[in-house]
């Protein structure tokens, strides 16, 4: 049973019960290059699926991060503020951005599993 899903905007969400941990994919960090700043959401923030919730900046540009699902932010990875390079080094583990309590688990049905995302990324090359 898979518990990690990806969006077409290159976010990932890993499920643990009704809480999802969210970050950007390894492919996304490679495309962005050296990450120098992240702006994280405040716990308690309620957000809808697809809404802008965080920002990641490389030397050259800013990119928005969208909530892969609706819900309430319950935690943010504040360690990234002092060490944004963690996103480059471990995008899909230590480089997580925030945790969200899902409002509607059926929203996961519209996301890709790891195999589908791999195929999706190969199609972008």
């Amino acid at each position, binding site marked *: 049973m898979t518990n990690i899903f990806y*969006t*077409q*905007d*290159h*976010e990932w969400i890993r499920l643990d019960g009704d809480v999802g941990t969210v970050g*950007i994919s390894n492919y*996304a960090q490679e*495309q*962005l*290059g*050296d990450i*120098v*700043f992240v*702006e994280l959401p405040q716990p308690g923030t309620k957000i809808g699926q697809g809404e802008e919730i965080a*920002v*990641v*900046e*490389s*030397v*050259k*540009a*800013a*990119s*928005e*991060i*969208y909530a892969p699902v609706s819900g309430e932010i319950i935690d943010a990875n504040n360690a990234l*503020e002092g060490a944004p390079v963690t996103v480059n080094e471990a995008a899909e583990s230590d480089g997580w951005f925030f945790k969200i309590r899902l409002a509607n688990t059926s929203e996961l049905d519209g996301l890709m599993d790891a195999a589908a995302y791999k195929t999706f990324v190969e199609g*972008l090359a």
Partner: protein
Amino acid sequence: MNRAKRQVLGIPVLDEAALHQTGQGFMADTIDAPLRYTPLHALHLALGAKMVPFAGYAMPVNYPAGILKEHLHTREQAGLFDVSHMGQAILSALPGIDIAAAFETLVPGAIAELNPGQMRYTTLLNAQGGILDDLMVTRPVRPEHQHQLFLVVNAGRKTEDFVHIETALAGKAILTRMEDRALLALQGPAAVTVLTRLVPEAAMLAFMHGRRFHIGGDELIIHRCGYTGEDGFEISVPANAAEVWAKRLLAEPEVAPIGLGARDSLRLEAGLCLYGHDIDETTTPIEANLLWSISKRRREGGGFPGSTIIQAQIKDGPKRLRVGIRPDGRAPAREGAEILDLNGNAIGHVTSGTFSPTLNAPIAMGYVNASSATDGTPVNLIVRGKPLAAHIAPMPFIPKRFHR
């Protein structure tokens, strides 16, 4: 991750630069025209560069090392940049014409005083004193070339610049575009050590001087100058010898290939303008804080386009000024961000912004009302709808290490 996806889909990383240039008189069919390749295109691909469209050319934005490492490598050792997309030309006077006097009718720089082999930074101006382009001008070394000037202009403006110069100096001078030449920039504290191994006499060049060298059958035009704030050289080589020379330089242990991404962060740390962003046809050299590029004789004597307007700005002070800006936190402010004073009044906007790898902090430049342009003035930058505390700061952001 919307913008990351746009990059994935092939929209240029430096899209603002490309878009600006398409908005500056490029014809509609030119926007869709196939990208041009520099003579080093195959080498860029072999080195694993990420290529992006820039000023109509496919250019390397970074190599596998990435912008941060490329930037720091240039500051610590030496970086090799392909700037072959820039426009190189020789302007030759017709008989009886003084080439310096003729060119001074187009630019506010003192060209007449240039010694043989000396190079100068100046600006092509429109009738309002607005900047059509910024460029480098050199008086050749040899006595038989004293009717000529060597010009290097921006890639995104070269077509318009060359037509402008030809039209304005019709009957006085002939412009020869050097389209069969590539241009390499070797920048960094080790640049002189490296280049001396291949061109021993290059070390004799003083800063902002250049001359021709003949090495192994290739005619090189080497200037000691650059766009990074470091010591370095710009090396004009015949297109068919460009790859050989680039490989020779890259074979030196101090040298790494550097892309446009680091070129932008390096020049911004050095406080240098990027045409189409920090200066354009709506900004004068005085507003752009380039008064230093206009000599006393030319300030007083005028005789260049827009000289009345520029002389008035020198006398009375410009209404706005290009300044350096240091955001107080870690978040960068990008081009277009509005600048407010502490009372919430709009006083200007950011024209370039990035994260400085050397300072490990964000830096920016922009225009503000002259009354708010003093170093240390606190301001707010509007980033994603929220105020970001910042202050006006002196430029360059890092000490210049030009060779004197």
